[in-house]
Structure formats: C-alpha cells, structure tokens
C-alpha cells in the first residue's frame, strides 16, 4: 500500500527554529500502523526524524501525537484508515506541550501536574496483615481509571489548557480521582477531604468546561471528563460547594429543574454570589457586547411549555437508586 506521510518537523539545532512540513512517500504493509510508517521512514529514509515509541501495543504511552489534527497513539492507528482522498496522512506533535524536536514534546509540566495531586495511596489507620478486603467491582472501577497510560493525548487536545495553561488538566484530575475513589485511601473526613479541597481550588476540577474532547481522544477508554464530574459530585457531597464551580453547577440544576431551561441572566449572578460586586461588574462588558449583537437573554425568564415533565424527570433521577 502506498502512503504519503506529511510530517510537521522542527529542529532546534538547525539554526532556523521554525517548524516546517515534509512529505514522505513510501510503501507499507496493509496492516501497518502510522507508527510502523514513521519507523520505516526513520530507519530507511531519514534518520534525523525524532519521535518517542517503544511498545507498539498501546501500553507504554510514548507515541501520542496528532494524526489528521487529533491526538492518537500512532501505534493504535491504522495507516490505511487515516489517509485522505490523496492518500496522505498528516502527522504533528501533540498539542499543549512545547515541542522539543519533530514529534517529541516536553512533558515536564505534564508530570508536574501529576505530582501536584499527591499521586500515591495514603491509607489511614493501621495496615491489615493481609490484603485490604475490597469488592471486585470497586477494583474493576478503579482499574478502568488506572488503565491510563499517561500518554498525554487528553492533555494535547484539552480545550481549556489551550487558553489556560494553569489548568490541572484531564490526566492529572483522572489520576486524582483514582485515589479519591479508592476505598483504601484515607477516609472521607481525612485524606479525601483534603484531596478534594485542593482539587477544588482555581485551576482544578471546576475549570473543566465539559467539552468532551478528552473522552473522545483517550485511547484507553479512561474517560477523564467523566472522572472530573465524579470528583465534583464527591466534592459537593462533602459540602465543598463554596466556590464558583460548584455554585455554577447548582444554579444550573436549580434553574433547569424549576423552569425547564437555563436562566442565563441569573446563572452568572448565582455563580459568583449576589454581593460579589467586582465579579458582577466584570460581566458588564460581556453583557453590553451581547446586547449590541442581539444575543442578550430575555429579561423575563419563562418556563418551557411542558415544564411538568422536566420536573418529573428531575424528581426521578434524584431518587436514590433501588
């Protein structure tokens, strides 16, 4: 099978430190992955191409990069399924991390954020002599999160990190959840409380905008955003609701439960707090711009027509599961 691989390259040694595109044409086996093609280029055509790779089986997390604009593991992506109508596949380094050379990016801040969540089990009380007794379900649940291989695909394509590099990000937050959900980690009043308080600070769990990108690109089915939502539930149930994020979530629910739709005028007010004047004033420019563009929400908030059925839905989901 003939393929053309168009690679965004960058070589800081080469004097002109700007990235450039280079296309390679080669023949690969039908079953070849994008990684196989890159290795073939490196071994047979151009030894100067740098990339990280090791296991070839989606377990070491080395080969996350953007293929046709989205983060993937190159070793888990078939070349034949990635070609456009001209037979070209486009390969770029992962996003949201500085490029070191070609397809190699700098993971330093990635690991700093992992370290920031105290990523190790902190049991309280005396250790049992044998293993901790825990249900298989609880372990299977955790294993679906510990299946994270730290490849950085989610971080690469996170839309919040694109605008706010201080955001802890999907990988670190999923890692944090792996501990807050572990029955062996400290009890709710101790370690878990402290963990969740930390994670509720600005740049933490409440900064996720739920764009779902991380769930889409995660090659291991870890679904980081869902873990972030679970963290939020844990935080609220421990009474850690005194922050914009939690208030936003509550106001959102309240509004929809009441009227069947979002009251967009009142939501920001409830989020930052009625008496938080500086924050409220900061909304003015947005409000004015919305007004001049005809996008201001109606001043009188009306319920949807069949609001009863929305309310029934709410009461149904808020009943404890049987």
């Amino acid at each position: 099978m003939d393929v053309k691989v168009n690679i965004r390259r960058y070589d800081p040694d080469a004097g002109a430190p700007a990235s450039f595109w280079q296309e390679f044409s080669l023949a690969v086996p039908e079953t070849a992955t994008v990684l196989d093609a890159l290795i073939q280029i490196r071994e047979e055509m151009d030894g100067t191409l740098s990339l990280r790779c090791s296991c070839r089986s989606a377990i070491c997390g080395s080969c996350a990069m953007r293929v046709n604009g989205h983060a993937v593991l190159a070793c888990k992506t078939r070349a034949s399924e990635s070609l456009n109508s001209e037979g070209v596949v486009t390969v770029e380094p992962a996003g949201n991390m500085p490029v070191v050379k070609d397809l190699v990016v700098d993971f330093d801040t990635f690991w700093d954020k992992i370290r920031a969540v105290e990523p190790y089990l902190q049991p309280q009380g005396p250790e049992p002599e044998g293993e901790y007794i825990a249900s298989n379900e609880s372990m299977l649940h955790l294993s679906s999160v510990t299946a994270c291989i730290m490849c950085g695909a989610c971080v690469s394509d996170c839309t919040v990190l694109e605008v706010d590099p201080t955001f802890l990000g999907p990988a670190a937050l999923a890692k944090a959840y792996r501990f807050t959900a572990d029955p062996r980690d400290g009890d709710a009043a101790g370690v878990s409380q402290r963990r969740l308080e930390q994670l509720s600070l600005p740049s933490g769990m409440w900064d996720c905008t739920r764009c779902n990108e991380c769930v889409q690109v995660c090659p291991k089915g870890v679904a980081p955003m869902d873990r972030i939502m679970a963290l939020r539930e844990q935080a609220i149930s421990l009474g850690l609701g005194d922050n914009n994020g939690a208030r936003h979530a509550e106001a959102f629910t309240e509004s929809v439960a009441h009227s069947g739709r979002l009251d967009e005028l009142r939501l920001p007010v409830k989020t930052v707090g009625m008496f938080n004047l500086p924050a409220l004033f900061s909304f003015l420019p947005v409000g004015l711009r919305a007004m001049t563009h005809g996008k201001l929400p109606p001043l009188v908030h009306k319920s949807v027509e069949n609001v009863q059925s929305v309310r029934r839905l709410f009461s149904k989901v808020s009943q404890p599961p049987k």
Partner: protein
Amino acid sequence: MLEHDVLVIGAGLAGMRAAIAAQAGGANTAIISKVHPVRSHSNAAQGGINAALTDRGDDWEEHAYDTIKGSDFLGDQDAIEIMCQAAGDSLIDLEHMGVTFNRDDEGKLGTRAFGGQRRARTFFVGDFTGQAMLHVMFEQLVKSGIRSYEEWFVTSLIQDGEQVAGVLALEIRTGQLHAIRAKTVIFCTGGCGRLFEPSTNALIVTGDGMGLAYNAGARLMDMEMVQYHPTTLAGSGVLISEAARGEGAFLRDRNGDRFMEKYAPNMMELASRDVVSRAEQTEIDAGNGVDGCLFLDCTHLGEALILEKLSQIREIGIDLAGADMIKEPIPIRPGMHYIMGGIKTDIDGLTNVPGIYAAGECANVSVHGGNRLGANSLLDTIVFGERSGNHAASASRDMDFIEFNEDEAVRKEEARIQAMLDRPDNGDRWGSIRQALGDTMNKNIAVYRNQAGMEETLRLIPELKARYAQVPVHNKGRVFNTDLVFALELGYMLDCGEAIAVSALERKESRGAQARTDFPTRDDENWLKHITVTRGEEGPELGYLPVTITKWTPEERKY
C-alpha cells in the same frame, strides 16, 4: 559532580523497587533511565504475578517445585526458595502500595491459572498487570523523592581497575554528556528481546545493561536460554498473554483439533512454555498450520469474561490483526519473548565485579533456569530488586567514592561519540544491520536449533560488527538525537547476540528452551551446569558453574 551512594540504572519494576529499597536503607540513591519510568517495558506484562499464599491453602514449596521443574532443573534452587518464600509478602506489599488487583467473591485477591503450575496462584489486574504495577511503583518513587534522571542514556561505566566508580550518561533532550559518581550501581536494564526479529519486546529492550556489564568484566550466564512464547500475534508478533489460556482458551490446528493432547495430555494448553512452543513448531513444520500460524480459540469463554479479564489483548487482536477474539479464533505462533540468561548474580544481586549489582530481566540469579514460568518474572523483579537495593545500600555505607577526573572522562566519551557522528555516509544503515541480526537470531536461535544454523549466525555476527564499526549516524544534531541512541544500542545488541549464539552452540543437549535437533535429549551427566560467557581479548570466553540443588533432584519432565 553528581554523586550517589547507589545509582540504579533502569526504572522498570526491578529498578524502581531497588531504588526505593536503597533509599529506605539510608543510602543517597538515584535512578536513571533512558525513557520516563512509566514507559519502561515492565508495563507490557499482561498476565500476572505468582505467589503461593498460605491462607489460600497454597505452599511456597509447591511453587518452588513447579518453578524448578519449569526450569528443566537448571534453576539454582537456593535462589528459587528465596523467591517463592518471599512472594507472599511482596505481593501484599504491592497491594498495600495501591495495585488494583482483581478480587474474588469475598473481596480477597483473586487468582487465575498459568502455565506449568498445578495450582492457580497468579494474581492479576485484568490483562494489564505490569502496567498497573509499574504505575504504582512510580507513585511510590514520586512519594520517596528519589532523584530521577529521566531520558538519560547510560553510555559506559567508569572503573578503577575492576571497581566501579561511576557512569557516563547522555542527556537525550540536550545531547549533553554527564559523569555521575557512584559507590555502587545496580543494573535493572531489562532484557534484550529486540535482537530477535520479530519479538514481543518493546523497541527499547536492547540489552544495554548486559552489554555494559559484559564490557566491564561481568559474567553473563545461561544466555542460550531464550524463551519463545506460544502465543504471539501473526504479523506484528505482539504478545497475546498466557492469561487467555489460563482463563480456558484452546489451541487449535487448521482442522480445529486441539493438538496439545499429543504433547501434554495432562496440562494440555497450560504445559510450560517451552513445551507448548515446541508442540506448535512441530505442528507448523508438519503443515498443520495456516500461513505459518495456529489458532488461539477464546470464543467459548464468552463475551463477559473476555471484556472483564482480557479486554486489552482483545483490542490488540482487533487493532493489529483485524480479528476479534470474542467472535473468532486468532492466528498465533511462537515468538521470541524473554531471556532467562543474563548478568550472573548472587542471591543479593551482586555480580563478580565489585560495586556492580543486577536485578530483573537483565540479571540471572538463576530462578528461571532453562525455562521461565509465566508470571514468575514480575515476581523476580520485585523480590530481587528489593534485595539488591537493600544490599547495595548497606554495602555502600562502608565504601568511599572513587576519585576520577570528571572532565577527562566526559571529554573521552564525547570524542568517542563525535567520532560516530563524523563517520562518512557509506550508504549503510543501522536499521539494516539490526534487521540482519534479528533475522539470523530468529532463524537459528529458534525454538529448534542445530549446529549448522548456529555456526552460520556466529559467522555473520563478526561481519555485522565490522559493518557496525563504520555505520553512519545521519542525525548530527544534539537535541533528542534518537538516531544516535539507536546506533549506540545496536552495539550492545551485537555483543548480546554473540554471547547467546556461542552459549547455544556450546550446550550439546536439549534442556528447557534449548531444543537441539542434533542433540535431542537432556544430558544431566554432562550438561547439568550453567554456561558462562566473559569478554576475552579475542572475543567471548566460555566457562561453567555448577547448578545449586537443595532438595529437588532432577527427574524426567512430563506435563
């Protein structure tokens, strides 16, 4: 200068376990790895880790006997006793650190069956046990605050006479060379699988530590014992874990028959690996396969079990061979997987070179002998990683740093590397040398071997070494020059390949993974001994060491 009492080279399971133990033992410890620790090859382990837990009615002596029988009586029984006795505590330690092992109905650790063992004693996390363990060990490394040099490639050792004084390492990201002074170094650099093509091993598994230690005067032992795993995927050669057979999968030939009946009527698919791989090769050679492959049939296990316990290997089958094991048998064949041989150590990880320790797959305390049982390798890394870390920490307390001239050491190594970069382009490529090495190893140091084939390999390797001495490095840059790293690795690979081939040719019998068509039987009288290789003036020199037998006398091996 950078300076540590204990410097651990390699951050897989063995390395991180060793570093954590050394640090806990009060030593100023650091760990150095050519990839980030969680990228280490330990993450590829799928099936599980063995331990005989007494509260489950198991007995470490049974585990020891299964291991010894699996080793075809070449394993050293003192080391095997230590490993099997320590297994229970090591496993519980791992659980306490946070490994999310699957549970049984009572919430206790659950087990699965594995090959060559009469009892289910393999503990597991789905089918990604190694990854789960490696990430937890990394968590513990973070917690310990141990200095970690990540993406630093060790290029050579510094010695004063024999005694180790430190290492030289290339910081891959900047291309800068550094000298690190150390009282003791522990090699935990993993195996050398990539010198076979294909192999289940990751691309970074290139025998660096074995090559470095060999060049520093250490003995390699049992290098001929190369394990071919019975179920590697057609095409890519990626592993399909023994866990599949442990959960009940069958092996079938082209007619759908379970051929293992002929070879191991009792244990069937769960006989030890050398036995199953030989059976497969015999069937393939007899024309009972399809395109050089047989079939692993999981279809009767049911979707639910596969999704709970074998989901990752199912994905591998779909991604790399386009076959879904829930719906159809998948094509497999024996493939190079593990090396039982390695740097010879004592039960505390110490080698014959003062200051040098080794643990994990690069080492050979001799717990695997002629054939490793599945799920004994992770155990080996944890038990002997910890022991060598402990020993190195206490030994370094009574040792002084050895002085050497840092600038001169760095300058000399820089000159060596610069000379590689300066080689003119003669049209050759390291990729093609590696391929030629991989092909000859796979052809001649295979499931079945014979004199003519091994001699062919031994004639070829010096030719490849001569090409290697001239091969150009195309990337002349400093930053993340992987071209240079691969070129350096190839040197270690060639040394390991030679050591393997000379040892295999020397052993004139069939035992464990060494199955010779020209010497088809085991010969305890002449060959119940280890073969060692050391570096001599004119190439590899052979030697012998006795096998330690405590209480299990060698007997005929049937499954």
